[in-house]
């Protein structure tokens, strides 16, 4: 009774859009697809919707061969990153459009639409034209349309990416509420995004996609704590996890002429070269620390992002307050060695602060 994909490959030109993707999605669950732009997220969702047919592989839902069913009979709903609504219809007509296609009784339609409007907070906007709404409101209409449909598979393709910062925060909160309360046990929700923070907040089952290939899957917490490869660590952190090439030498770690104490969770690692990974938030300003040169300082919200350089190594540090720095200024920083990751020469995780559960 699940949505099952087996070895799905889609390769319209010389590049893989989907490369041997398999999955088993259960009803009542939330799945997030995390990947950079052009990693195949949209192709993934479009394949499930039926807008694309894979070159090979199987897709089945409720024990039916889904590939043989045309889009318009699949009963899926999809929200695009561009705010796609029907411009010639008003808000109310937009939301009832899919319901009318399915010949549902007038009373039921009225009830469903009212409920959907309430969920997305657009009560009173029924007669507005789409062009009169703001971007956030347009996206709410699109969401209401897919909710009112009560589709068994709900696909959201980076629904927040085209909104401004404030609205994104606000709508993300609401999404969380809608996904936890407003969805029936029958629905499979698939949400794609480039934003690791969104993935962590939605706290569903995560699939990390890159160049059409599934790199890792698991609960959000697991992806955060134990990214299986360097690539996953980069994709699932914003700013990307800092990677430093270095060596372990019994009790010491050395990189770029910096020597720090080896953390306790590294004690089983053999002495050799590693890619050490550390999150930007685990680098702190410290007068006892190592001297780095500032290449760029960005202030975002209440945080400051420092792009630092020493020799060949570049790291990004996240300072949790607004500070003014000059470019080329020297600062001293300290790495929190207890939060260090180690990836081997094949870029696979060998040790994490949370204990490796695989590899």
């Amino acid at each position, binding site marked *: 009774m699940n949505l099952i994909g087996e070895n799905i490959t889609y390769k319209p030109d010389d590049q893989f859009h989907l490369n041997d993707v398999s999955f088993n999605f259960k009803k009542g669950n939330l799945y997030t697809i995390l990947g950079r732009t052009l990693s195949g997220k949209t192709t993934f969702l479009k394949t499930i919707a039926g*807008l694309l047919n894979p070159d090979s592989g199987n897709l089945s839902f409720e024990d039916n061969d889904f590939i043989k069913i045309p889009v318009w009979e699949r009963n899926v709903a*999809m929200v695009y990153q561009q705010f796609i609504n029907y411009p010639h219809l008003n808000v109310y007509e937009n939301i009832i459009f*899919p319901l009318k296609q399915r010949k549902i009784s007038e009373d039921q339609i009225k009830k469903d639409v009212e409920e959907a409007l309430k969920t997305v907070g657009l009560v009173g906007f029924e007669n507005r034209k789409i062009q009169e709404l703001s971007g956030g409101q347009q996206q709410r209409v699109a969401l209401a349309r897919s909710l009112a449909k009560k589709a068994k598979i709900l696909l959201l393709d980076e629904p927040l990416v085209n909104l401004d910062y404030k609205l994104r925060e606000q709508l993300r909160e609401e999404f969380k509420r809608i996904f936890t309360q407003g969805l029936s046990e029958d629905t499979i929700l698939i949400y794609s995004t480039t934003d690791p923070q969104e993935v962590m907040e939605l706290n569903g089952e995560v699939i990390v996609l890159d160049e059409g290939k599934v790199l890792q899957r698991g609960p959000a917490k697991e992806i955060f704590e134990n990214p299986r490869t360097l690539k996953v660590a980069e994709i699932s952190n914003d700013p990307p996890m800092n990677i430093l090439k270095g060596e372990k030498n019994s009790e010491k770690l050395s990189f770029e002429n910096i020597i720090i104490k080896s953390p306790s969770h590294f004690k089983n690692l053999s002495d050799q070269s590693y890619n050490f990974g550390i999150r930007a938030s685990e680098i702190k300003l410290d007068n006892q620390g190592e001297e780095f040169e500032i290449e760029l300082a960005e202030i975002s919200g209440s945080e400051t992002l420092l792009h630092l350089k020493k020799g060949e190594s570049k790291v990004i540090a996240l300072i949790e307050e607004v500070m003014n720095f000059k470019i080329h200024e020297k600062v001293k920083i300290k790495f929190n060695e207890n939060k260090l990751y180690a990836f081997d020469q094949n870029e696979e995780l060998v040790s994490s602060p949370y204990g490796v559960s695989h590899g």
Partner: protein
Amino acid sequence: MEKLYKFLKYTFIILWTVFIVAPFLWAISTSFKDFQSVNSKVTYIPWLDFEPTLEGWRVLVKSPARGGVDIVEPYFNSLFVTCTASLISIVLGTLAAYALSRFTFKAGFVRNNDITFFFISQRIMPPIVLSIPFFIFLSTIGLLDSLIGLVVVYIVLLMPIAVWIMVDFFNRVPKELDETALIDGCNPYQAFYKVVLPNSIPGLIVAGMFCIIFGWIDFFFAFILTFTEVQLLPVKVVALNSSITPWWSLSASALISVAPLIIVAFIVERYLSKGNLSGALK
């Protein structure tokens, strides 16, 4: 500065309006004159300058036997040919344009752009190049000097315009709109007429207008492909011109010739002036 700009703006608008409207006033005034009033001295205002007469208009409805040139039948012929050809061109052209915009065609080395260019290239050649093939084609299938034959030829001339305008228009309609319609339970035909078409009305209006204008004003093919059975308005109007130029009836026929276009212009004016053309879809 502000005032100067306003002054210059309105001066220009007034001059332009006079430039556009003056020939119409001249034609209206002339159509009520007779030989005497046209050829004696410069006159403009009826009753004051000259005695108005309906002779110029009467010639147009009188049968040739009674010294007139009956343009009533050619007028309706022209209306029929233009409207039928435009309608068929728009319907077929819109469908072709949608297919060219949304689906990928491959046949040997031919791709979508080649097909689009094939349509447009029909209009790149000077019409005279097409005249002999058309003549031979129509005479072979026995449609020379007939309304149906003219409709066929005009479809060939007008459909490229419709395809050209509509391909461009559909390319600017996001593909995701059709996809959303499919996801929302429309089959491809329903997606086209329930979603894409209602959002393409501005494009359809522009395409329709161009078809009607180009169809209505064509003289060349109407002249070459008809003889006695069927005549179209532009040919008949030219036939008015004999040894003495009858300015009065020429003016009258010119006025009723442009009338349909003016009516069309007034109907679509509100679509054009409101900026609805580009604003309907982002």
